[in-house]
């Protein structure tokens, strides 16, 4: 059984780790969830703040319909149940960057219920991860503590920005699975266009819930639904990279096993992650937990819409990564692994498809994944920032496919497009630089004759060792400046040298 793979060895026996993720994804929207203020990132302090966001007396929230559509779209993308009746609740607590003194969220009746997604771990392993729910809520503002030794400042630009909180079921069984799930979720949201997934700007962040239990107990939990088979969990807040998710799970699992094995207990607590040390530490214990006094927000009516509205949105859904992967395999003859690599990032998949459309899919895949991605990796650039456009690369592949140039010349042209011939169409580069492959047999025969005449001892050798033919091919290629068609040269030489 596959669960053995995830066992962690302790001093006193084997343990299993159980992980659930609560991911906060900022809804891609021009304006905020309940106000007309801009939701754009990067404005000056308090520039994107409406009277509602600042909680002026008598101000009322008005729900942004587009954000609702985005949440529905995301629910559909997560293969989840969309609730046509949901409700907003107030979560009450005091904090300077929470101007209303409450956050408008969805507590008991979220807009999206249970769903499930497929997560690829590697070329051979795919797992299914359950989604518990998705709800809409407001973001808080930002407190800034380092501008003055005695005072804190508050920037309300984020206050009221729409977030989707996507809660997984506790079905992730390792750091690897948690990281892969987070990454896949990001891919899906970016495909849907419902979140930009920019983690460094805080558009996506995860609260990582980790617990450990004795080997075998998770299986019992799955059979019975009885949470007492699982260990006490800790929640580590605001993790904003896939790598950190992995670190948190690894660290917490090890720490919890150590505590338990030395006779201690795990406190149900909120923890913070230190990116420098890779460790977590207590932020708030259960005793200090807030009583949020959730209750339905009386300023807002229950959120209702029709099944038809949901179906209209479903009809407009873009192709999602799993569907695209399968189509790439079928349409372009790619391997599952190559296709998965390409679809992991929608921009990369789009780039590939532009290059591959109407061309040899495998050739296109090889050029995109090997040459181009290699280059981008080396230079630390994004696909959207590629120095070579999909049109250019496509045109280059055309030249290879119709035998105008050889693969070797193509690589040369690829290099030129990065440098002195940047932005040029490969066809023009071939013309200007006279790189066209020589298939004119007359010229090739002349070159072959010349080499044969100048190298009698090699000619003698090739009669016994046909493999030495390669040396002649190389010489002819050299003579023609690499422009000769290698197959044609091969044929001519075989004939002339009488090699089979």
């Amino acid at each position: 059984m596959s669960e053995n793979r995830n066992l962690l060895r302790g001093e006193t026996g084997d343990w299993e780790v159980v992980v659930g993720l609560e991911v906060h994804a900022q809804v891609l929207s021009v304006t905020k969830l309940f106000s007309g203020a801009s939701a754009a990132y990067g404005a000056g302090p308090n520039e994107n703040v409406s009277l509602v966001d600042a909680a002026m007396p008598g101000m009322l929230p008005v729900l942004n319909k587009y954000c609702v559509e985005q949440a529905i779209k995301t629910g559909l993308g997560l293969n989840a149940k969309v609730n046509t009746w949901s409700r907003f609740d107030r979560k009450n607590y005091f904090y300077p960057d929470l101007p209303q003194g409450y956050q408008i969220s969805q507590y008991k009746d979220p807009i999206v219920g249970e769903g499930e997604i497929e997560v690829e771990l590697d070329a051979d392993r795919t797992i299914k991860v359950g989604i518990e729910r998705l709800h809409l809520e407001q973001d808080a503002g930002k407190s800034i503590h380092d501008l003055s030794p005695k005072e804190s400042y508050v920037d309300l630009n984020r206050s009221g920005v729409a977030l989707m909180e996507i809660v997984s079921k506790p079905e992730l069984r390792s750091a690897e699975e948690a990281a892969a799930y987070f990454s896949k979720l990001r891919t899906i949201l970016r495909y849907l266009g419902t979140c930009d997934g920019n983690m460094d700007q805080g558009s996506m962040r995860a609260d990582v819930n980790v617990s450990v239990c004795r080997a075998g107990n998770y299986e019992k939990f799955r059979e019975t639904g009885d949470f007492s088979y699982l260990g006490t969990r800790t929640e580590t807040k605001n993790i904003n990279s896939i790598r950190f998710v992995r670190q948190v799970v690894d660290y917490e699992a090890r720490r919890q096993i150590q505590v338990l094995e030395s006779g201690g207990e795990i406190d149900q607590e909120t923890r913070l992650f230190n990116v420098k040390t890779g460790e977590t530490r207590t932020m708030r214990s259960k005793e200090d937990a807030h009583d949020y006094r959730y209750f339905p927000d009386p300023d807002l009516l229950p959120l209702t819409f029709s099944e038809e509205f949901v179906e209209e949105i479903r009809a407009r859904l873009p192709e999602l990564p799993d569907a695209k992967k399968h189509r790439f395999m079928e349409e372009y003859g790619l391997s599952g692994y190559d296709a998965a690599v390409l679809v992991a990032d929608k921009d990369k998949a789009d780039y590939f498809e532009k290059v591959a459309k109407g061309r040899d899919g495998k050739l296109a895949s090889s050029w995109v994944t090997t040459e181009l991605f290699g280059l981008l990796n080396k230079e630390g650039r994004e696909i959207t920032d590629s120095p070579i456009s999909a049109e250019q690369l496509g045109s280059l592949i055309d030249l290879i496919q119709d035998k105008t140039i050889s693969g070797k010349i193509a690589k040369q042209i690829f290099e030129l497009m990065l440098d002195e011939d940047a932005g040029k169409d490969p066809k023009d580069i071939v013309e200007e630089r006279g790189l066209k492959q020589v298939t004119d047999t007359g010229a090739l025969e002349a070159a072959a004759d010349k080499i044969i005449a100048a190298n009698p001892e090699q000619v003698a050798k090739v009669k016994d060792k046909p493999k030495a033919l390669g040396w002649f091919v190389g010489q002819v290629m050299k003579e023609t400046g690499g422009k000769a068609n290698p197959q044609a040269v091969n044929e001519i030489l075989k004939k002339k040298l009488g090699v089979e």
Partner: protein
Amino acid sequence: MTDLTTKTIAELREGLGKREFSAVEVTDAYLQRAESAAALNAYVRLTPEKAKAQAELSDQRIADAEARPLEGIPLGIKDLFCTEGIETNAASHILDGFVPPYESTVSANLLADGAVFLGKLNLDEFAMGSSNETSYYGPVINPWRREGEDTKLTPGGSSGGSSAAVAARLCAGATATDTGGSIRQPASLTGTVGIKPTYGRCSRWGIVAFASSLDQAGPIARDVRDAAILLTSMAGHDPKDSTSIDRPVPDYEKALEGGVKGLKIGIPKEYRLDGMNAEIDAIWQKGADLLKAQGAEIVEVSLPLTKYALPVYYIVAPAEASSNLARYDGVKYGLRVHDDNIDEMYSKTRAAGFGKEVQRRLMIGTYVLSAGYYDAYYLRAQRVRKKIADEMAKVFEEVDLLLTPSSPSAAFGLGEKSSDPLEMYLNDVFTVTANLAGVPGISVPAGLDAQGLPLGLQLIAPAFGEETMLRGAAALEEAIGFDAQPTEWWK
């Protein structure tokens, strides 16, 4: 020249239209009268310069034959309505110095119709109270006195400034708000007319929130016609308030003529309380007889859940208030009591900024929403509220209107009930049901008690039944012929 402040809004409208007097003259007359009535403490803030400028503009528009429905009519605005550029405190210390950069939708509607604003009217702090005694700016004094006494009486609350100002003719009409009876009870105690419209009829945008699911703005005026004129202007759909209802606003003044012939009016027997004031009972009976004499059919009806209305109200309203008032934290505007520790700053600011009654309600509200108590209090109260609304809807399948007293007593002396919050809360006993059910109610003066104090009767209508309600109110008003005035002891 006659005293312009004796004219109703309808009369002013006519006289201004005929150029018998100017808007500036009317406004000056009211400002003068208001300034000489400081003893009533009805206004927390007069804005004479703004008022005069608005009146001048009104005269210009009248001259240009561009008069709007309320052109040049001087109104007082309850200080719960945010008014652009004019300090708004909700009678709370915690909103010290707060000047809204925006105008509430209701007051903006009145301005757009040409009204002149004389100033901001006193109220119970955050509209929490039934006697106007919780105001940070001190209580309003009722212009009415018991015959032969000079005991200071309450004008009711929370819209005590509005009711007193209308009764003493310190404005032609006033805006008010009603969460559990805050328009109808003060109207009853001052011999004025007050309408609490259907929930969602008037926008709540820009009104300092007390209990969002109950708050509703409405007018207090001298007679039913004036109240109808003001409501026509105040009401309307507002996309900025998600709970406001998109439904055309009729000309409520046109509804007054219908009479009550053929209307079925219910007398809910549960409103006849044990130990009820006999005078109120008598006036209630008199009202029913008068309506019957005009052709209405009077029937007894039963609303058995009535006794739960007050307890439900005192769970729901504080719960919502505890959350609505969380924004007054000393961080953004209003009062801040400094401390280096943020939690201490919150505590000190809120302890200093909120009065005792507000603190009491915030604590009740916080309690009923707390883990472990939510189901027993808040959730149960919401369920009962739903049943009360259903029961109310059901009774309106039988009758067109309900007739009840507006308040359980006439105006009482300041300090008489303020030491006992529960007794104070009983003031809302006849009015809260309409708030819980979201239906409209109106209080109409019905006579004077033996001590010479006014008493009101209430008509309740089904949701958006304001026109029928006004028909009944106009008929009742005419039949009663209430024309008593308080003696002007305060001048």
